[in-house]
């Protein structure tokens, strides 16, 4: 099995106002093509874990491997490059740049990667928008489209550099049922048709149940029993 992401003995403390352990000996790995959901009650540390895994939070003990490569904690430009190239993000809020149109928002990480020419990046961005069924919005300003559409644009942006893994922090948390289902269907399609690896933090049980694997957390620890259970797809 090809391990895309591996966490070894990850511990994390919050220091302010008092020292609290938020992550305790977290060990797990995600294989290529898996669609994993990370669930647990509010405050159990699931989002904290996601940000550690995303390389944005480097204040932890333990080892994080992405694509078999150990992530350094101090080298910020290197981590930025890893995020750009290997990780796609979808957050609870869309975080689109209002100064740009939809197409440009999707293109930005691709232009930053600087692997393809501008025309090529534009072509790829249009393709991603087509997969998500929002190519007709390409030239609209980012603040002129609906909430569900914005979240789909954010997914297209996450896909632009063909990342190894897509990480989501409550991507459906701010959407109504219809749009939630739409977003789930997109993730499912990406997983099934494009063999895309996904790690989604959610507290929505109906969303979690439909993923390939559920990692359940409680009080900063991963519950061992749940991580073996593979629910029916």
């Amino acid at each position, binding site marked *: 099995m090809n391990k895309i992401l591996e966490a070894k003995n990850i511990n994390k403390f919050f220091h302010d106002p008092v020292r609290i352990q938020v992550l305790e000996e977290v060990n797990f790995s995600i294989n290529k093509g898996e669609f994993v959901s990370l669930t647990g009650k509010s405050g159990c540390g699931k989002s904290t874990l996601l940000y550690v895994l995303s390389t944005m939070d480097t204040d932890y003990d333990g080892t994080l491997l992405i694509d078999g490569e150990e992530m350094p904690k101090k080298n910020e430009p290197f981590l930025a490059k890893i995020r750009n190239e290997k990780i796609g993000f979808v957050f609870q*809020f869309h975080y689109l740049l209002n100064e740009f149109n939809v197409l440009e928002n999707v293109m930005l990480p691709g232009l930053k990667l600087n692997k393809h020419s501008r025309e090529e990046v534009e072509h790829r961005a249009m393709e991603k928008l087509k997969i998500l069924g929002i190519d007709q919005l390409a030239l609209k300003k980012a603040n002129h489209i609906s909430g569900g559409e914005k979240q789909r644009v954010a997914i297209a942006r996450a896909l632009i550099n063909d990342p190894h893994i897509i990480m989501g922090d409550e991507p459906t948390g701010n959407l109504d049922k219809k749009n939630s289902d739409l977003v789930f269907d997109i993730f499912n399609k990406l997983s099934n048709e494009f063999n895309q690896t996904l790690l989604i933090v959610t507290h929505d049980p109906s969303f979690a149940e439909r993923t390939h694997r559920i990692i359940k957390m409680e009080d900063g620890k991963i519950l061992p029993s749940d991580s073996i259970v593979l629910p029916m797809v």
Partner: protein
Amino acid sequence: MRTKLLISIAKSLLLARWKQTLVAAVGVTFSITMFITLLSFMSGLNDLLDGLILNRTAHIRIYNDIKPNANQPINNNTGYKNGHNFIGSIKSDASRQAIYNSAAIMDVLNKDPRVLGLSPKVTAQVFFNDGSIDITGSVFGINSTEESKLYHFDEYITSGNSADLNKVNNSIILGKGLAEKLLVGIGDAVQVTTSKGDRFQLKVVGTFQSGIKDFDNVQSYASLNTVQKILSVPKDYVTSIQVKLKDITQAPQMAKEYEKLFQTDAEDIQTANSQFETGSSIRTLISYAVGVTLLIVAGFGIYNILNMMIFEKMDSIAILKATGFSGNDVKKIFIYIAISIGFFGGILGLLFGFGLSATIDQIPFNTASLPTIKTYPINYNPKFYMIGITFSLITTYLAGWFPARKASKIDPVVIIRGK
């Protein structure tokens, strides 16, 4: 490609807040405009005031000073060689004021490659007789062609023509004040009496106004020959030689050299007019201080606006960082914003500064003491424009640097989780 991308992001952020950007840029434009205008005007004024004296003064003046002989007889007495001599009541030497061997000296000076030109001068102290009144004054014997070429003599002639000194025998150009006192005009004759008692009739061919009234009240010019005739001295009698150099800064050193070589006194312009240099440099210093202060104020404006922009754009910065832009990239974006405000504001400032200086240059400025000046003086030195744009870039860079650093340190996790 990467820089291009960062610049295009900077541009979008700038244009999204174009009103604030405009205010910041107007601040820079205003301060650069004032900086350029102030310096051009102040420097024009400096040049004018310096020109009053410096243009008309020789870079090195070779003459014989009236002073006690440095080599007193007691120094030759070997018996007192090791002692220190105190001599009371020494009198200044009664040696003649003319320069010995002036023709040979002028020959040497003319061959010196560092010398731009020279003009010999004879000074005669005379009385101008007007009925029962005697007015003390002096007549300078000059070579009017050389004097005009080197020291802008014709610029100060208010009536008549300086060339007439050579054409008309026994002619004189009087100071304006002197002419008024003597009640004479062009074509009239004035009578002068030398200190030896000889009397001469001279024909007035012009008047001059130097801008310094005390001069105009007592001075007059005649040709070298005329003055030599008044003094009844031979053709090689010259009391001073005015030397103009190619490089004025060499004057002090060359004055010493000539002093030794010609066994005369030589005075350089820096020693003779040190007060003008001090005045100019202090005025320049004040202009720079005011200009830089204006720029610093504009810098604070940019600092504030960028700080606000960063506060507003926290989310955008967070997502840029999450999708792979490093802290350094974010910093660059904000520095590009600051520098482009500085650049475009600065360029506009240069244009407006030029316009305002040109306008001031057209304002009439008539003063009795400066006959050749018709409008306010402006110095269009490109140096000011270079300094202006450099300062504006440096100030805006510094003003942008602190907010940019703050933006680069934003932790995306805090912003994204904070929602």
